[in-house]
């Protein structure tokens, strides 16, 4: 049970700043929730309920105070085919299953896997996310009246110039209000939020998704749920790391995973889509002074208040103003430094970053991009470590004994270099393989040592292996055959 003092620290250490930040974030959540509902092909209601529900639940269940979670780009782009082919009820069912999978992931401590995601992959992920958010605005920017571009430009100008006037009011809100007034009173014909589909008019209702509960349904939703869960957790873990850095406080990543799961599980029953932590909105939160669970809760609750009470007004908001806000979020999410860094980072790191971006943007799947990035970084790492390998050899004075002195890491990637180090054609009585500075990492390495020893023996050369360190010796004793009686036979069976 959390004690009183931790509740105070997590909730009420600075209520004024947290409430204000929560309100600013709620305003920044609206465009995103609507935008991605449109992308996913569902009513804005679905995304808006999701943002409300996820933010409010994660405020209690999450492991990273001050982080904002809601309906997100990364999840929305994954579910497009599901909604298109099977309908929105399957999305709700998939969201529930996504929650279950995330809770399981949290219980299995899969957050520890984040150690294997290198910095370049993270940067690639973040940049890809920014590009996805930007590309999601394209439908609002193609085949539209020219006035739309003027409105988007005006919106961006207000967002970036208004803070020079005052920082006491959220400039995205000012942009939305000003553009709404202009379009309504100026009689300008552009798409409005009301044109995008149904807005919420009441509190969400708890209901089972309208799908048959059988194996067939599970087969349809499971692949989507798995991807949604993976993508959601990835973005949440990355965002948690960013907020950790900003606030210089630690977070409980396993709890965050379980919390995300619980939030999505409940959200599915409320007739809403899945979501996860949001990088852009979390940055806005911290920038506005929010750092506790209270600001997350306020963001969610205030969002619902805005929608239920002000929905006739929200319906008249012109889409170009929301596009401007989303472009801002996209720009804020993008890692500007990574472009400058491409030039002086090692080429492998840059390649991993770019590959992650390209695969995500090409496949619309953040999880696929991250997998590719992780595999690539693993390969590059192996190829770098492989080079930490050297051989020296000398012939004894009588010309009958050669000593090979091997140093470095011997594993699957360096096994070939290891095998090539020996000259089997040389006529010798005895070979000494000194492995004092070498380390065997896997059975490929041990297998190569086997082959080398046995080849020498078939040439009639006696072989002595010396200097193995303790862990390597243990590997050799367990897996090698050259030191066992029927070595040739065993090697043939390999």
């Amino acid at each position, binding site marked *: 049970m959390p004690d009183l003092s931790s509740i105070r620290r997590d909730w009420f250490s*600075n209520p004024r700043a947290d409430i*204000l930040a929560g309100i600013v974030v709620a*305003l920044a959540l609206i465009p995103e929730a609507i935008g991605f509902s449109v992308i996913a092909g569902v009513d804005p209601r679905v995304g808006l309920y999701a943002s409300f529900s996820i933010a409010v639940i994660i405020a209690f269940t999450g492991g990273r105070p001050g982080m904002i979670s809601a309906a997100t780009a990364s999840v929305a782009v994954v579910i497009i085919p599901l909604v298109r082919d099977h309908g929105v009820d399957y999305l709700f069912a998939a969201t529930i299953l996504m929650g279950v999978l995330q809770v399981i992931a949290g219980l299995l401590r899969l957050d520890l896997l984040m150690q294997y995601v290198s910095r370049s992959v993270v940067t690639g992920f973040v940049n890809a996310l920014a590009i996805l958010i930007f590309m999601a605005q394209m439908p609002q920017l193609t085949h539209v009246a020219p006035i739309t571009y003027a409105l988007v430009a005006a919106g961006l100008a207000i967002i970036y110039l208004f803070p020079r006037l005052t920082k006491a009011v959220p400039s995205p*809100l000012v942009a939305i209000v000003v553009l709404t007034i202009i379009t309504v009173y100026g009689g300008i014909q552009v798409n409005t939020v009301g044109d995008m589909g149904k807005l919420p008019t009441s509190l969400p209702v708890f209901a089972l998704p309208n799908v048959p509960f059988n194996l067939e349904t599970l087969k349809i939703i499971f692949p989507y749920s798995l991807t949604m869960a993976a993508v959601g957790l990835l973005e949440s873990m990355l965002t948690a790391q*960013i907020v950790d850095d900003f606030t210089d406080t630690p977070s409980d990543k396993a709890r965050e995973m379980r919390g995300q799961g619980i939030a999505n599980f409940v959200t599915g029953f409320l007739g809403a889509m899945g979501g996860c932590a949001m990088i852009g909105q979390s940055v806005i939160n911290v*920038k*506005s002074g929010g750092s506790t669970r209270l600001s997350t809760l306020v963001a969610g609750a205030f969002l619902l208040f805005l929608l239920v009470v002000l929905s006739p007004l929200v319906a008249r908001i012109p889409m170009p103003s929301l596009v401007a806000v989303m472009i801002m979020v996209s720009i804020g999410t993008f890692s*500007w430094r990574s472009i400058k860094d491409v030039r002086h980072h090692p080429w492998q790191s840059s390649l991993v970053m770019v590959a992650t971006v390209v695969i995500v943007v090409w496949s619309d799947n953040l999880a696929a991009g991250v997998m590719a990035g992780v595999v690539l970084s693993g390969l590059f790492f192996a190829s770098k470590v492989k080079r930490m390998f050297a051989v020296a050899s000398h012939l004894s004075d009588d010309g009958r004994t050669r000593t090979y002195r091997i140093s470095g890491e011997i594993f699957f990637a360096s096994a070939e270099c290891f095998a090539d180090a020996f000259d089997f054609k040389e006529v010798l009585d005895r070979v000494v393989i000194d492995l004092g500075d070498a380390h065997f990492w896997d059975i490929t390495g041990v297998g190569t040592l086997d082959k080398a020893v046995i080849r020498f023996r078939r040439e009639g050369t006696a072989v002595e292996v010396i200097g193995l360190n303790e862990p390597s010796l243990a590997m050799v004793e367990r897996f090698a055959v050259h030191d066992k009686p029927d070595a040739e036979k065993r090697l043939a069976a390999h």
Partner: protein
Amino acid sequence: MQNILACVDTSSYAASVCDLAAWASRKLELPVELLHVVQRKDAVSGRHDLSGAIGLGVKSQLLEELTQIEEADARLQIERGRVLLAAGEEHLKAAGAIGIKPLHRHGGIVETILEREIDARIVVIGKRGASHEFAQDHIGSKIERVVRASSRPILVASRAIVTPQVVVLAYDGSPAADRALERCANSPLFLGMPVHVVMAGPDDQRHRTLIDKAVAQLGEAHEIRATLSSGRPEEVISAVVGETPGAILLMGAYGHLPLRTLIVGSTTTAMVRTVRVPVLLVR
């Protein structure tokens, strides 16, 4: 090795914390660890920017800005802490403490105290911290948290200290009070000091028996007085403390759950607040 953990900050209690720590050090023949925790400014909530606009490079910019704010403040705090620790060390030396080890740490005050108290026989802290300096008749919010979470006896310093001469033992028969009694009987801290056992409650058979038992347990080593008088505990005890020069109050602490305290208040808190002498709280 065991020691006495003395916690100081920039409040006016630092001097009396040192005095008390030195007294405990002489009595227990243990060295003093003088702890000061650097309190960093919370830059996140300190910024006043509700513009909500984010742009290129916002993550690195914001991190840089937060770091700068905290860095400048932290440097100042560290310098201040060094001066404070040096002064404390001088003070302890003058007051006759045995072996002084200054310790400067970053982190939360309560968390750091709990971390360091593992080696401590007694933790000495001021009644109010620097953040509550001017709230008269309040006790610092951190003290209750330390006392509740700590497994060590906590010696709470009042603003002005005379070397403790007489132990006033607040006794109510509760398990926490029994532990305080036991400590009073056995600890070298109170060796040879007269003890005044005080109990608040009506003068009846039950209370008589309790107080007699307590007196018996203290044994021959101390000069003992006992008072049983009816009234609210904090009034009865502060009256006795008030007329005893050189008193140190010894009591069991926070026997109740935090929830009950939230509703009806805590006798411990009330007591620490009202008496103007050092208090040793035993959990």
